[in-house]
């Protein structure tokens, strides 16, 4: 992915940007204040496996002040490095903010768990739970990748997820088969996509407006059907069977990563497949080349005989399949049954993950994981009893996204023609 900050220096030095060093310094000082000086005196335990697991790993026990001080000082060092590099007119290497972020995460985790009433957390559960929570986010942001890479802004991810969840619940309940529900979810996602595509491509209605309105439409439609139909006879309409968890023998027993990678429902496995397929296809297939061209410079693609709007149409529909399947997670995996507005804004977080992940499937995957982690952490911590108010933890993904789009973690560049309808002539 290209970043706008990587300056091409041809005749002179890059224009100095003090944004990065300033942010790093401020955060490092905060870390010193909170994670080091304000560290709880006790040890922190991170459990890596449960007793009774096939492979039992010893827990990691660390001293909160030690970790706090080490991390804070290292962050300060990185901030100083960034200042020095900027002052001498050099670029701050990209690994600096990356390492900084990892240090921050470790220090924060140690501090926040250490300050809890029970400074003992199951790291494996925390991680596995994060992945689970991230599943719909990942599907949603892949849907966004497919749309935006071809030049259509997809605000309707929320609607796609919600309609997918609804259709999965109804179809699975009626048929008694979760797999039928899965297929229905994909179809429902495509239906939402179809409206998005027809209005934004055929009728050139502003894409953001269509997206926002579609979310309202789906919310209203599912809400209405929920009360008019589903609640009237929940037994018949809204009691879908759940997708079974498929354990892959032996591999599922690997500590920490076993449950994450090899102990998933079919939706979970599909998620990994989807990320890989979209990534490879986007960068190495004919379809991907054309998709990216249509999203970056549609006219160039058009002059080479690529049908821009057909390409966009197809991508938007494909995005519906992906997001629809993601929606089925809510009713076939998470809970058994549809609830009003049950996606609760996850589609918007998926949108954020897409941007945070810089329009790259792999980037979006990790961004979604981070958001899943934040959500799961707040769930876990509220059980442990933590000094940080629950609401602030819940805010975290959104705050991180604000920082991300504000370019404080490196500026990302959207596909050149994203959001711009293509009109010939």
């Amino acid at each position, binding site marked *: 992915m*290209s970043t*706008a900050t990587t*300056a*091409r*220096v*041809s*005749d*002179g*030095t*890059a*224009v100095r940007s003090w944004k990065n060093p300033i942010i790093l310094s401020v955060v490092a000082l905060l870390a010193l204040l909170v994670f080091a000086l304000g560290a709880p005196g006790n040890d922190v335990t991170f459990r890596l496996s449960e007793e009774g697991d096939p492979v039992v790993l010893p827990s990691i026990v660390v001293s909160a002040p030690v970790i706090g001080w080490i991390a804070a000082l290292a962050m300060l060092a990185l901030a100083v490095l960034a200042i020095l590099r900027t002052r001498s007119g050099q670029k701050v290497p990209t690994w600096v903010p990356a390492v900084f972020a990892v240090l921050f995460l470790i220090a924060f985790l140690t501090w926040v768990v250490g300050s809890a009433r029970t400074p003992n957390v199951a790291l494996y559960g925390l991680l596995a739970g994060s992945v689970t929570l991230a599943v719909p986010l990942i599907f949603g942001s892949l849907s966004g990748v497919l749309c935006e890479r071809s030049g259509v802004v997809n605000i309707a991810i929320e609607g796609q997820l919600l309609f997918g969840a609804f259709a999965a619940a109804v179809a699975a309940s009626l048929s008694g088969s979760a797999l039928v529900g899965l297929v229905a979810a994909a179809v429902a996602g495509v239906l939402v996509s179809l409206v998005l595509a027809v209005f934004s491509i055929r009728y050139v209605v502003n894409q953001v407006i269509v997206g926002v309105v579609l979310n309202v439409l789906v919310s209203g439609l599912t809400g209405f059907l929920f009360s008019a139909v589903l609640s009237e006879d929940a037994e018949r309409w809204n009691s879908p069977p759940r997708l079974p968890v498929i354990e892959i023998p032996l591999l599922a027993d690997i500590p920490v990563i076993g449950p994450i990678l090899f102990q998933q429902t079919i939706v979970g496995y599909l998620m990994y497949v989807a990320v890989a397929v979209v990534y490879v*296809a986007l960068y*190495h*297939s*004919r*379809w*991907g*080349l*054309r998709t*990216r*061209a249509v999203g*970056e*410079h549609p*006219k*160039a*693609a*058009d*002059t*080479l*005989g*690529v*049908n821009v709007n057909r390409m966009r149409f197809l991508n938007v529909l494909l995005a519906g399949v992906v997001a629809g399947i993601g929606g089925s997670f809510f009713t076939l995996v998470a809970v058994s049954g549809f609830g009003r507005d049950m996606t609760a804004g996850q589609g918007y977080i998926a949108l954020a993950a897409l941007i945070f992940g810089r329009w790259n499937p792999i980037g979006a995957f990790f961004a979604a994981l981070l958001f899943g982690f934040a959500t799961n952490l707040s769930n876990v911590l509220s059980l442990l009893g933590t000094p940080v108010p629950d609401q602030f933890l819940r805010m975290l993904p959104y705050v991180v996204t604000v920082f991300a789009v504000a370019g404080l973690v490196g500026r990302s560049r959207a596909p*050149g023609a994203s959001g711009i309808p293509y009109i*010939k*002539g």
Partner: protein
Amino acid sequence: MKLELIGITKRFGSLVANDSIDLVVEPGQVHSLLGENGAGKSTLMNVLYGLYDPTEGEIRVDDEPVTFKGPGDAMAAGIGMVHQHFMLVPVFTVAENVALGNETTKAGGMLNLQETRARIRQISDQYGFDVDPDAVVEDLPVGVQQRVEIIKALVRDAEVLILDEPTAVLTPKETDELLGIMAQLKADGKSIVFISHKLREVKAVSDVITVIRRGKVVGTADPGAPTTELASLMVGRSVSLTLDKQPATPGDVTFRVRDLTVQAANGQRVVDGLSFDVAQGEILAIAGVQGNGQTELTEAIMGLQDHVSGSITLGGEELVGRSVKDIIRAGVGFVPEDRSVEGLVGTFSVAENLILNRYDDAPFARGLSMSPSAIEKNADEKIAEYDVRTQSASAAAGTLSGGNQQKVVMAREFSRPLKLFIASQPTRGVDVGSIEFLHRRIVAERDGGTPVIIVSTELDEVLELADRIAVLYRGRLMGIVPGAVSRDVLGLMMAGMPADEALAQAHDVQGGNL
């Protein structure tokens, strides 16, 4: 391959862009389409390339009628096009750009770029292009990007190559190289349709010249025809190449630029250490190939650039670091190079556009409250004075023709007392009638004692207006020469030769010829 256009007409609503145009391109021929900006050349080529449907008429390839539903069909028929604005995806590599739409794939639709790379190397070697298939296009110089465009056509086995204003973005040296490439292609049996409004180039390479004016073919000419004849065919009346203007009577120097440097966001010095003066009552023209820092220079003066160092003073007052509004209030009038993007708000009315940078001054506003009657009165006056052809003062400015839009911009800038007037490409895309009017207004402003800076990539315009000419090359000043200098000297300077050397060399050449 023989290509024929028969009775091609293309209408956009009520506007007739092409009016029953006939054209025959014989195999192995360079056929030039000569015409002014806006004459309908590009529209015609877009019809030929399948981007527009012709309203009427027929295209024949080797005497067989064909219809192109899109560029794909045109390419399949052996027609390739190098667009005026390159159709390259900036973030793609050369190979990806060349492969696009014409991909060779492995199993499962996976790209096989290896084959594309080989083809690029082969063509690159054959014509001496020196293009790296793995370079990212946005990092390449314009000249190389143009070669990538040519490769794109050749990879698709184009027999007819359309080059739409290919020299607009090139230095004279690069232009000569391109003309060489065209000769090579012709020798290989390819036909070339060369679209240009530059007489010298057209005369140099053409076998046949077709002249288009206002969407119609007004004649064909032999490349040997005299320049003035071609020019009058193109413009439609006998052209007096010099404007009727008095010699300048420069007064005090009130505008000074010292060591001006402008950095782009990526750190590149797009304007590099410029120093020059402009006196009251003179026109300084800034010449150069497009993209050599002219835009950034004017924007730096207006306070529109971010990373500016050095000094710009007007009447002793420093302008660097001040806001655009302050600079406008200091008496700087500015006609930006792209009026539709920077000069006008297309959806605003003509009346509103006429006060776009004076909306909060009396009599248009008192405090926060605006006065519709004053705005309307001003509009009526200006529309009459500048003969702006518009339905009404409340019509959206975007509905006006290019010339009339430019009149609105000029009328606005000239409607307040100026201490400096800057116009970038003042007559680009403007019809001939308006050009003369606008030029006269600019000269009148000079004669009123205002220092004037004209930025133009058109040598004709530069030579017509300038009292002195400054040439920019890669953001550096190649020197300032008198307005009466020869084209050769300017050409050398535009290619990066300092003024003294250019003057000496041009002198030598002339001496040798004599």
